[in-house]
């Protein structure tokens, strides 16, 4: 630790904390005013949990909440399975096939989300497919699958190729060798691909808006629907902000603890 007080260090720290404060100001404001029963932000009307009660009794919001997680988890599962198998397959393919597959696989990452969304919509319209849960699921898988492949690929590259061969020489079938040798090696990549998929899906609005059945509401579409009508957020959504921030914080802590454990494992 340095003991002498340095003005530049102080200013640097000050800048970082001010920026953080400004970034969190909107969320903090909503959280603060979620604990009072008032229509307008700025009019503190005593501590009350009323908004939370209305939030949890609001069937529409609860349904949207459930739908959001349903889409996120199911699309992440599909993405993780397809993407992991894809990454393994591509890794052992010939150079040209590899280059082509990687190139195409990266298109959704480079592409503007609205272009991806429109292209999928046109696909479904062209083939006369009704918009339903499956079209929405496909949309979210397109959005998230590149990130699974991108998370798994480095783990495959770090792997020692000889262990797979050794397993075969020791009499394992290729399927068995993949399951008990390759899969455990790439598991951290698979896990981070899954988490990344869930968070991307939870956050998504544009693809959801384009590929869903219009009766199907997620949090994004619900909030968009109510905010574009009224001037400010309906009060109970302030309570929702608190709940979502808490969930994000919990995920953050879990991931952080998890990565710390991984690091201490590596040291051993």
């Amino acid at each position: 630790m340095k003991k002498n007080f340095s003005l530049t260090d102080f200013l640097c720290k000050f800048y970082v904390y001010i920026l953080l404060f400004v970034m969190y100001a909107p969320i903090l404001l909503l959280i603060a005013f979620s604990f009072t029963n008032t229509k307008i932000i700025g009019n503190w009307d005593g501590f009350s949990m009323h908004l939370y009660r209305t939030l949890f009794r609001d069937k529409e919001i609860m349904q949207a909440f459930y739908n959001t997680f349903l889409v996120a988890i199911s699309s992440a599962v599909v993405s993780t399975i397809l993407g992991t198998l894809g990454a393994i397959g591509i890794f052992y393919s010939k150079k040209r096939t590899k280059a082509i597959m990687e190139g195409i696989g990266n298109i959704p990452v480079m592409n503007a989300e609205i272009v991806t969304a429109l292209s999928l919509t046109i696909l479904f319209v062209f083939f006369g497919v009704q918009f339903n849960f499956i079209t929405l699921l496909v949309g979210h898988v397109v959005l998230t699958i590149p990130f699974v492949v991108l998370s798994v690929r480095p783990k495959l590259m770090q792997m020692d190729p000889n262990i797979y061969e050794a397993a075969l020489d020791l009499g394992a079938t290729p399927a068995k060798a993949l399951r008990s040798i390759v899969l455990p090696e790439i598991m951290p990549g698979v896990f981070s691909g899954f988490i990344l998929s869930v968070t991307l899906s939870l956050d998504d609005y544009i693809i959801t808006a384009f590929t869903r059945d219009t009766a199907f509401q997620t949090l994004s579409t619900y909030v968009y629907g109510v905010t574009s009508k009224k001037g400010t957020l309906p009060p109970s959504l302030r309570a929702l902000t608190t709940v979502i921030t808490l969930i994000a914080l919990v995920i953050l802590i879990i991931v952080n603890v998890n990565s710390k454990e991984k690091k201490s494992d590596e040291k051993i």
Partner: protein
Amino acid sequence: MRKNKIFSRKTLAVPYAVFLILFVVIPLFLIVAYAFTDENGMLTLSNFSTFFSGGHNINTLMFSIFIGMLNTAICLLLGYPAAFFLAKKGMGFGKATVLLFVMPMWINFVLRTAATRDLLFWMGISGGEHPYLATMIGMVYNYLPFVILPLYTTMTKMDISLIEASYDLGANKVQTFFKTILPMTMPGVVSASTMVFMPTMSSYVISDVMGERKISLIGNSIQLYFDQGLWHIGSLVALIMLVIIAFGSLCTDSAPEEEVRGGLW
């Protein structure tokens, strides 16, 4: 080589390949096909003349590019020093502080934007009266984390001895910044820019929510055509954006994505 290859590891990629062809390749071909045809499926250039007539759409396109560049510049100016201080050793910032900068990404995008609008409203800046200011603030709020993360990742990999060498050789702080630090962090600047520029000009949510529908970006145009079921002209706008994206990615020759986006985990 083993003889009996009933099971090949390559075949594992088949479902993924089929998925990519069905839901990435074919839709893109459909966009191109739709842009050059009319409702009856006849080849036509009328979508082009509709789009370019009147100048309104060109204005929107130019304005979107401008907003995209402005937002990229502001985010870089605000985010670069922050990422630098976060990465600097001896500052005492842990990984937790970096994660705090990124956490807003996990709070629902629409809700976050609406929260920003409520804050501005509370401060007396309403989107109805100051649509441009409100939209720009909303854009910066939303995309700042996307700038800080890739910059931070490249900065932690920066070779400090080069900076020390620069000082030893008599360069002052400004020279050192422009001749060693900035070139070393350029990959981060490039990937940060690509993560901000395109999403800014194509997102219609922020301009809708923050600017109370008084501002129209190119994303708003696509969304409008989508609402009206005008797939052909909508495809043309999407095609124009695709060309811009392709041009942009050729120019930047982007840094490996996994380093940038996967860096957090």
